[in-house]
């Protein structure tokens, strides 16, 4: 997933220009010429310079390729699938835990990730169960973090 130098330079340049453009309407401190836009503009200015430098160096060294070079892992569908699954599991936790509660959701997320990583089902189930209870008790009971509640295993709360 490595972008070429020229692409990185162009992305940096565009990022800098976007920050510059977005900062044009920020308010100033009344009576002063500085304010909310000063810092974003300074950041944008140097970002543009860095972008131009990277582009210039790539052109100078005749490395003109655009786009992305895929790392060996990115050619494997299974590895890409596993990365996608981590992201899906995190998003899934955010969406599902308010409905189902912490205990079943965390248990499901951990078991699923262990299985994805190739842990044996029995070990995955047992470790996830112990870890869920340990995290729930330490954060939920000891540190009083209001983890999403559920009617499942109410004695844990």
């Amino acid at each position, binding site marked *: 997933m490595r972008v070429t130098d020229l692409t990185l330079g162009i992305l940096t340049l565009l990022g800098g220009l976007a920050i510059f453009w977005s900062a044009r309407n920020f308010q100033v*401190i009344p009576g002063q010429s500085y*304010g909310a836009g000063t*810092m974003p503009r300074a950041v944008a200015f140097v970002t543009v310079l860095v972008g131009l430098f990277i582009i210039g160096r790539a052109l100078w060294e005749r490395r003109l390729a655009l786009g992305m070079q895929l790392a060996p892992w990115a050619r494997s569908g299974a590895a890409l699938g596993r990365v996608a699954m*981590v992201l899906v599991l*995190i998003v899934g936790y955010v969406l599902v835990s308010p409905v189902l509660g912490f205990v079943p959701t965390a248990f499901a997320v951990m078991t699923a990730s262990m299985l994805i990583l190739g842990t044996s089902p029995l070990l995955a189930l047992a470790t996830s169960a112990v870890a869920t209870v340990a995290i729930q008790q330490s954060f939920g009971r000891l540190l009083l973090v209001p983890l999403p509640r559920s009617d499942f295993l109410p004695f844990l709360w």
Partner: protein
Amino acid sequence: MDTIVAAAALVFQPYVLMVIFGSAAFGMFVGAIPGLTATMATALLVPVTFFMDPVPAIAAIVTATAMAIFAGDIPGTLLRMPGTPASAAYVQDAFALTKKGVPEQALGASLVFSALGGIFGTLVLITSSPVLAEIALKFSSFEYFWLVVLGLSCAVFISPGSPARGLISLFIGLFAATIGLENPAGAPRYTFGSVELMAGVQFIPAMIGLFAVSEVIRGFIHRTDPGKPPKTSGRGIISQQWQNLKRYPKQALRGSVLGTAIGALPGAGADIAAWISYAVSKKFSKTPEKFGEGHVEGLVEAGASNNGAMSGAWIPALVFGIPGDSITAIVIGVLYVKGLNPGPMIFITQPEMIYAVFIVFLLANLIMLPLGWIAIMSARKVLSIPTRVLMPIILMFCIVGSFAMNNSVFGIWIMLVFGVIGFLMEENDIPIAPAILGLVLGPMLEQNFVTSMIKSQGSFIAFFERPIAAGLGIFTIAVWMLPLMLLLLRRRRAGRTDAASAN
């Protein structure tokens, strides 16, 4: 004296001591697992310390990081997989000793000289920081502006890798720091109507994302479990080091001094210190040809150096509120969350807090010896825990930790976004430390920059009018010139070699 007694009373409480031992064990564990760094140990610990008083919270972080940096040497020595980047510098030598069947020599040298370096760094911290704090009291926005810029510049230009990529990382952090309402005009920036973004990017979930979630994603890609480590006998781990100390006293001292100095430089931390010290050791050694083949000399110097740097990094953090490395950047974020503003005033208003930190540092480096011994002895067991079981548990810790900051799922979203950003950055060889420094120091940079510009009515000359500001400014500009000078030097040397070979 009263202050020291008050500080000791803060530290020597059963609860605080329990926290110290618990976090020491945690740091040892995380550091010993390849792929889990000392910074990650801190990132995972922060949500828990959030619920503690300041002294136990700092004690937990200090102890865990000191242990993690040492423990990183264990998988480095036994499996040639450095547990933390700070151990990577001398992994070749350490592993060569394991191949010779004497891993105890490497592990013992790392342990004892890590502790010595750490204690040396702490003594420098104790003696220098109150003096520096007195000077820092006279600082105005101009000096602070330059100090912040110096810290950010060191993080970009001194760290290994391309400065341009370091700058990209820095500006990602600085841009993230501009989000929210906290700015000189109090105007909402990049909030897109979200009430939660008005408070800015929550620092702790962002850091958990950058350091821990990105690592978890990598763990899901590679699924590599460390192999089975060789047995360690435990004989001579500590006793043999007396001979090493007698043989290499200069190296131990040089490593400690250089490590502490590099750590004290805002923006440069333990990993850079270890690399530089290893190189220095080789350069001045009588037997440089033995380096890389299982020679203890480099281990002594670089081992002392990386733990010295860990203590040294706290000097700018405590005195100026400017972090010396990514770990102290996290600590400063935590201190701000707790309403404690690190900087010279803390030495006047809460000196007992500062002395408590000093005591914690000494304790952490002393208990490193027995706990490190236990860690070495149990290394085989710890290293045989499969990462395919650990990564999912770490992922859940990250989720709960990010949620616990504000008890809102918004923290988890921030963690996710920064986790993906961190992963993409590492894939593109963009270092992460400058981004985290930018995120922490962004508001301070902005405040001091805008204040200075208003005071000087837009004139940049005012930034060089006060003597200390001028000194800091010139030093900062010299750091910017460093890559250019190195390039010229390399070209000149290459030109000379070409000429010599042509002759």
